[in-house]
């Protein structure tokens, strides 16, 4: 306790210098946290928007579907598989899809689009599609109509209650053709999707493609994006077990395959990784500045107190205890700056979490151009706060090795005479 007291009081011997060092750590931690949570928040939103509207964080498909996207590579409904999905607590929700490419036509305009057959209720839980209706209404249980993305509707000059014709290839070579009443227009946050998507009720989609009770995929949403790999592996194991129990000669992945969002949306993942790497470099520069600040403090502290260290060793203080006190001092200083930085960042992040910044005008257009949502909402994941704390403390610990070495080499008599 006395050693801790000594370290704490020593820390405040040069009050101004300590305050400057603590302030530099405070601001660096604050900036690093805010920078990181903003960045992660933007990407979380972008990834979440994209995967909820498209493939989910994980997708169960028929093996081989991803490579040729053929409607023939579909799978039937399997109660055992559905039970596995419903009992895994890490999967927040899942929705079945029956997707195919088709030509959408009206008047003289035609466009290639992605038509997705959806279970209205489940889909709404994942993508909150009903909340994105800009005109018209969401699909009812037995609806025979279609939902069009806003950009697509604009291109085809379609409004609610107009009719669109779809033409494509159905299951096992059948021709898929149908005429659908536009029930609603959907405004999507991701511009690319806004130009090319349409939704049919599951039954309507099966009728259009003549597939019967088949699906192209189940899209899964998970509680924590970081758990994707772990959930995937567990599901593969469970599916293997399911097949083994069912007595079918099964090789994992031969009938089902599970893909992660990173595999399905590699460009998005690469963009995310690149931005995170950029963030690490920026944080690294900030921490380099902090490191020099702390090192300067260490140098001055050691030089100023050399005589005192000599006295302490002379009266019987072991060098390791002396070094421990000095390291404790540095850690206390860094910890104070770090905790203040975290404490300062916390309300700031919480405020913007509950009051996201909505970009307007040219900023919004620019964001949309690059497929970013124009809403900036920071991530509130505590991990990002803790990482910054660890980073600063690690710097302090590494730099304090200098003090350790210096004290270990100290000759009492030389120090007293210094």
């Amino acid at each position, binding site marked *: 306790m*006395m050693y801790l007291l*000594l370290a704490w009081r020593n820390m405040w011997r040069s009050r101004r210098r300590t305050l400057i060092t603590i302030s530099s750590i405070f601001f660096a931690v604050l900036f690093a946290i805010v920078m990181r949570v903003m960045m992660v928040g933007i990407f979380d939103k972008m990834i979440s928007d994209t995967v909820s509207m498209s493939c989910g964080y994980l997708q169960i498909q028929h093996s081989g579907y991803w490579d040729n996207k053929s409607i023939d590579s579909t799978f039937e409904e399997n109660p055992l598989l559905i039970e596995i999905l419903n009992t895994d607590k890490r999967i927040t929700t899942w929705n079945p899809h029956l997707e195919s490419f088709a030509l959408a036509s009206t008047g003289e305009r035609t466009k290639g689009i992605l038509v997705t057959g959806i279970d209205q209720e489940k889909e709404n839980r994942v993508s909150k599609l009903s909340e994105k209706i800009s005109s018209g209404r969401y699909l009812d249980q037995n609806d025979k109509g279609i939902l069009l993305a806003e950009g697509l509707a604009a291109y085809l000059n379609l409004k609610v209650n107009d009719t669109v014709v779809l033409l494509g290839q159905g299951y096992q070579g059948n021709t898929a053709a149908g005429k659908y009443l536009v029930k609603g227009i959907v405004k999507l946050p991701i511009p690319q999707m806004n130009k090319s998507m349409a939704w049919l009720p599951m039954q309507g989609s099966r009728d259009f493609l003549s597939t019967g009770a088949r699906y192209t995929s189940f899209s899964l949403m998970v509680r924590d994006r970081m758990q994707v790999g772990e959930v995937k592996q567990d599901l593969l194991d469970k599916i293997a077990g399911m097949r083994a129990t069912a007595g079918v000669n099964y090789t994992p992945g031969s009938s089902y395959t599970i893909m992660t969002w990173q595999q399905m949306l590699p460009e998005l993942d690469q963009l995310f990784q690149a931005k995170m790497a950029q963030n690490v470099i920026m944080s690294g520069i900030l921490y380099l500045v902090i490191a020099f600040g702390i090192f300067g403090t260490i140098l001055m502290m050691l030089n100023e107190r050399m005589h005192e260290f000599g006295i302490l060793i002379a*009266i*019987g*203080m*072991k060098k390791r205890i002396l070094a421990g006190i000095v390291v404790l001092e540095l850690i206390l200083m860094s910890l104070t700056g770090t905790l203040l930085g975290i404490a300062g960042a916390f309300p700031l992040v919480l405020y913007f979490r509950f009051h996201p910044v909505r970009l307007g005008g040219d900023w919004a257009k620019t964001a949309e151009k690059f497929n970013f949502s124009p809403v900036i909402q920071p991530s509130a994941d505590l991990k990002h706060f803790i990482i910054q704390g660890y980073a600063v403390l690690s710097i302090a610990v590494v730099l304090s090795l200098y003090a350790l070495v210096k004290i270990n080499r100290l000759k009492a*008599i030389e120090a*007293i005479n210094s």
Partner: protein
Amino acid sequence: MNTIIELHNLSKVYNPKTIPVYAVNGVDLQIEEGEFTALVGPSGSGKTTLLNLIGGLDYPSGGEVKIEGVDITKMNENKLIDFRLKNIGFVFQAYNLIPVLTARENVEFVMLMQKKPKIERDKLVADLLTEVGLSDKRDSRPSELSGGQQQRVAVARALASKPRFILADEPTANLDSKSATNLLEIMAKLNKEDHMTFLFSTHDQRVIDKARRIVTLVDGKVISDTKNQPH
């Protein structure tokens, strides 16, 4: 009387390979328990170097330093630190207290390093500060004490470890006359009543007058070793 300190042909040479300077040159000396000895001599005569060698703060170039029969020159640095903590009290010329600790904490600190229980520490701290006349300054930091008061705290600290002897390097050098006299009286009282052995370097005549033995050094050699009647 027990011999506490024995020096045999002790020497300390600086620059032995270029231009050798003998700070201590073949000193033979014995200090008995309970002595109050002054080490005197002009500046550069080797007083401080000799005290440093006796205190295990420096290694000699030759000879032996035996403390109660144990040759400390053979000890490694860590063992020496431990030995000093258990056996030797130090009072340095100035600025030898920990500035961020109070008088009480400075005295207690040494006992804390010795891992003494809190009850024992509290009692001894109170006794020692009373003994050096600073019980009312127990919560003052060094910066709030005069030079003389600081040196008295340093004496209390030196005694806190219950050492076999105390080495004091010019303890009154930075003190005014009144403070110096006061400090000397405390040291003399501790020597007389508690039989604490003191060996101190000085060129302060007031200190020399209080000593019962005077060892004179010139150019690192003992040129006289006389008994003195303190007054």
